[in-house]
């Protein structure tokens, strides 16, 4: 059954299932019905922590050291207990700052430093490569072992087989292709991959089921339960030694060291950060993960020891303990379980490789390659609209490269170590992120240089004490320096650094690297105060919790203090109202009954925050609560807020200036309107007066005639004559008022044609002839032979001339009066003069006579005939046609009314 093609087919079928799950989950996510919006899925996806290291390696570790496999799982259990604190905060910070990877996280925390992002990426890639090699080694060797069924043959040493015959090479290629297909189909700005998370959760179930299957088979199939297994172990001195651990300081030290290391790794491994933080859809899911993930770890470890004991009993020698999970069922001809185990191991490996390489490729792309490409101005990338194709391309290459590096490490160093030891090299590498990340979450004093120095120092020590020795042990580097130190200096022996002994190589490395790392991080950070940019980012990271926390106050304050405080900003009445509502909501009758507790302080703070902003509100409340002194951060916050307020008030000032301008304009317009209104009012009053005057005569004489039939006939005729005259005056007045109103409002109808003014003068004179003859006034003309043509309305111009002629005869003496009309051309205007030998117009009246209802001269005598509107109307008409009308007069020498109009079709052209 376990022929090569069956195994290969089963493997690809399994990968196909994974792909289908991911595809389906992506589609559902697009449709808004996310499958991963589920705390259980989140907890299971965290179990990507369990790789082939757990699946195959734990048994190997247990077979060698007994309980030595356990710290790797106890650490994460403890970390998850802190998950509510640390993980939730990381998630909040990441979401707040749109963090997409752990490199991004560190870079962003220390002032968005690209250099830091790149450094973290390099450390992560270099550090994780052994871990990837571990997966390749596990899958390829399990594949090789399975193929030799029913024989149990350990695979040949890595690096000895030719490349094209090396199954690990093909595993690496298949995994690279699979991951590329899986993780870089499309680009998501949030770097979230719902389908991947769903598939990872599924893989977690598969590995647990597979491991349980083999565990149950060994414990209850081969043996008779746990008691039986352990009883048999007690029979062998070698096995019973596994039941306890060496009771030495170094043994406990290693135990504690590994626990600590795994506590950090479960947070800081790029894939764990990806799943726990970046892919987290709801921070509340952490609540479930807090116990489900540790429970998963517990379950997957229950059968480790029984399998290890079973393996050791089954194969005293010649079989690598890392393969017991697979070789035990094979030795008992359990082909189905063996195949299931292989699939379980494959699932453990693929889960790790997929998430790890996707996370790393994102970092390589975003924090290493793109910053460099964007700096190369010659590429003109910043001008390109769509970079997503390029980004995907970079990530695909990065995935391929990482897997190939993993393969190279496997070929070069893979054989010298057991699975767990390889993995621990990677754990120690990512532990270098701890000071920068954890410190950055809780301490605001860290600076960019501090983080850089810490990371570099830690990484160098790690490489010197752990990575290089792994090459040396494989013969890739001269073993010389291992034994005698660099340059032969004993103190620099990589795994006895400064003569430190008594620790295993991992704890040794962990101690020295973190010593250097933390020392450099703190020391360099403290060289200078953080700059404004770092403080801003530090506040965003460290204080991320403050906003989420509901009750931030540990102290209380009495109503008597809080109410006046709120009253100062809100006004006493509004503050009192709000406090009364709060009291009622707590079932209290009066405000004074409110207890001086944190809830009241909280209420007052939020009340104030609405008025003066949250930071200021906090300070104000703190002044009453006196809980804690004002920290520099609060001051920064207040300054931030204050500058916002300043910007806002600047805006307000601008607005109010605009408003002032608008108001001034309005006021001006209003003044003009008022003035116009006053003028109109005066005009109406005057019109009313002018209309009432003839009406008064008409009414008086009519009543007198009506009341007194005795009046003589002569008297009657005189009275009726007056009534007729006054009626005519009234009619003229009304007509002229309407006419003027039309002229002034621009609603008058004009017909503009060519008019010969000499003709108009003659016609007007003819119509006035009778009036002049009646009064005995002489009318003479001075008209040129040439044409005196202007553009105008014939009737209107006639109206002007009749008005002037009429006025003239009114003011001259009967019998001796003389009026002379002259028309002539003066330049490009035609000039018309109407001169009389009357009393003339005094200088002070020469303008006023053109105002409405202002009459000049001896008013009494001629009053019934004038309306006081003739001249204003005439001037309106002349000005309409582009001319002007005025009066010239010598006292006693008569008056001359003159108007000019532009010549039409003049020769001046």
């Amino acid at each position, binding site marked *: 059954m376990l022929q090569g093609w069956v195994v290969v087919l089963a493997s690809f079928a399994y990968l196909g299932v994974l792909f289908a799950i991911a595809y389906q989950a992506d589609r559902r996510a697009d449709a808004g019905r996310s499958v991963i919006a589920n705390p259980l899925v989140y907890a299971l996806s965290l179990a990507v922590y369990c790789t082939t290291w757990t699946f195959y390696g734990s048994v190997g570790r247990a077979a060698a050291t007994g309980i030595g496999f356990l710290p790797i799982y106890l650490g994460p259990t403890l970390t998850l207990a802190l998950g509510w604190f640390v993980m939730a905060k990381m998630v909040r910070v990441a979401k707040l700052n749109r963090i997409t990877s752990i490199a991004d996280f560190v870079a962003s925390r220390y002032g968005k430093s690209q250099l830091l992002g790149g450094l973290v990426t390099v450390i992560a890639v270099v550090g994780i490569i052994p871990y990837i090699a571990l997966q390749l080694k596990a899958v390829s060797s399990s594949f090789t072992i399975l193929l030799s069924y029913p024989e149990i043959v350990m695979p040949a040493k890595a690096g000895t087989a030719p490349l094209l015959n090396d199954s690990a090479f093909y595993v690496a290629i298949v995994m690279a292709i699979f991951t590329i297909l899986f993780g870089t189909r499309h680009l998501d700005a949030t770097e979230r991959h719902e389908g991947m998370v769903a598939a990872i959760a599924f893989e977690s179930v598969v590995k647990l089921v597979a491991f349980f299957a083999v565990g149950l088979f060994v414990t209850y199939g081969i043996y008779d339960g746990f008691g039986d297994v*352990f009883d048999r172990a007690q029979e062998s001195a070698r096995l019973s030694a596994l*039941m306890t651990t060496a009771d030495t300081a170094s043994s406990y030290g290693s135990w504690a060291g590994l626990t600590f290391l795994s506590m950090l790794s479960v947070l800081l491994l790029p894939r764990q950060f990806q799943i726990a933080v970046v892919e987290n859809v709801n921070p509340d899911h952490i609540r479930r993960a807090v*116990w489900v993930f540790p429970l998963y770890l517990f379950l997957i470890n229950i059968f480790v020891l029984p399998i290890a004991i079973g393996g050791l009993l089954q194969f005293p020698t010649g079989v690598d303990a890392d393969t017991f999970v697979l070789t035990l069922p094979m030795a008992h001809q359990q082909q189905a379980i063996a195949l299931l185990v292989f699939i379980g191991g494959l699932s453990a490996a693929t889960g790790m490789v997929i998430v790890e390489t996707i996370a790393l490729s994102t970092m390589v792309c975003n924090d290493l390659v793109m910053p460099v490409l964007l700096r190369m101005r010659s590429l003109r990338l910043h001008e390109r609209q769509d970079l997503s194709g390029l980004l995907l391309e970079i990530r695909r290459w990065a995935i391929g490269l990482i897997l190939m590096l993993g393969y190279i490490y496997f070929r070069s160093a893979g054989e010298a170590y057991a699975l767990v030891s390889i993995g621990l090299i990677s754990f120690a590498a990512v532990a270098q992120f701890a000071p920068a990340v954890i410190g950055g979450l809780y301490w605001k004093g860290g600076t960019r240089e501090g983080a850089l120095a810490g990371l570099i120092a830690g990484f160098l020590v790690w490489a010197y004490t752990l990575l290089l020795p792994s090459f040396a042990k494989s013969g890739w580097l001269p073993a010389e320096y291992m034994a005698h130190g660099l340059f032969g200096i004993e103190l620099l022996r990589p795994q006895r650094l400064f003569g430190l002994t008594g620790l295993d190589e991992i704890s040794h490395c962990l101690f020295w690297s973190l010593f250097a790392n933390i020392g450099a991080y703190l020391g360099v950070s403290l060289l200078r105060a953080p700059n404004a940019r770092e403080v801003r980012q530090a506040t965003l990271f460290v204080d991320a919790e403050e906003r989420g926390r509901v009750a931030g106050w540990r102290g209380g304050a009495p109503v008597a203090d809080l109410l006046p405080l709120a009253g100062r900003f809100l006004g006493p009445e509004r503050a009192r109202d709000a406090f009364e509502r709060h009291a009622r909501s707590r079932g209290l009758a009066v405000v004074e009954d409110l207890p001086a507790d944190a809830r009241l302080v909280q209420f007052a703070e939020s009340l104030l925050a609405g008025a003066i902003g949250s930071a200021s509100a906090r300070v104000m409340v703190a002044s009453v609560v006196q809980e804690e002194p004002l920290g520099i951060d609060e001051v920064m916050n207040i300054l931030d807020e204050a500058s916002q307020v300043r910007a806002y008030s600047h805006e307000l000032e601008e607005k109010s200036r605009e408003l002032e301008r608008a108001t001034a304009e309005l006021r001006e317009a209003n003044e003009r309107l008022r003035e116009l209104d006053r003028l109109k009012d005066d005009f109406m009053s005057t019109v009313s007066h002018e209309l009432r005057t003839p009406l008064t005569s008409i009414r008086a004489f009519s009543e007198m005639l009506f009341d007194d039939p005795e009046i003589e006939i002569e008297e009657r005729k005189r009275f009726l004559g007056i009534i007729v005259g006054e009626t005519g005056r009234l009619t003229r007045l009304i007509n002229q008022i309407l006419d003027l109103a039309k002229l002034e409002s621009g609603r008058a109808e004009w017909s503009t044609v060519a008019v010969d003014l000499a003709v108009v003068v003659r016609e007007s004179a003819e119509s006035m002839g009778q009036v002049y003859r009646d009064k005995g006034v002489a009318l003479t003309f001075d008209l040129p032979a040439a044409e005196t043509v202007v553009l105008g309305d014939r009737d209107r111009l006639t109206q002007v001339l009749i008005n002037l002629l009429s006025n003239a005869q009114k003011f001259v003496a009967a019998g001796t009066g003389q009026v002379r009309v002259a028309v002539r051309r003066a330049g490009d205007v035609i000039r018309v003069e109407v001169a009389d030998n009357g009393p003339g117009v005094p200088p002070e009246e020469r303008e006023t006579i053109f105002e409405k209802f202002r009459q000049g001269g001896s008013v009494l005598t001629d009053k019934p005939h004038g309306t006081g509107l003739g001249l204003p109307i005439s001037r309106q008409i002349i000005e309409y046609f582009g001319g002007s009308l005025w009066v010239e007069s010598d006292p006693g020498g008569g008056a001359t009314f003159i108007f000019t109009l532009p010549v039409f079709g003049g020769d001046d052209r």
Partner: protein
Amino acid sequence: MNRSRLAAQRLVALFLLGCLLFNFPLLALFNRGGEVFGIPLLYAYIFGVWLALIALMAFAAEREQS
């Protein structure tokens, strides 16, 4: 006092408890021969404490939801 903070404090307490229980010197007390229900003492101790810790964490994390 807010419930969420209470839960967080309980979990921190469990973390500290776990750190103590899983390490020297308490671990040393059980680092000897002997069995509990057929299971070696050290394993019985570690797995027992582990499971109890998980149960308490579940209790602390989930309880305040209701």
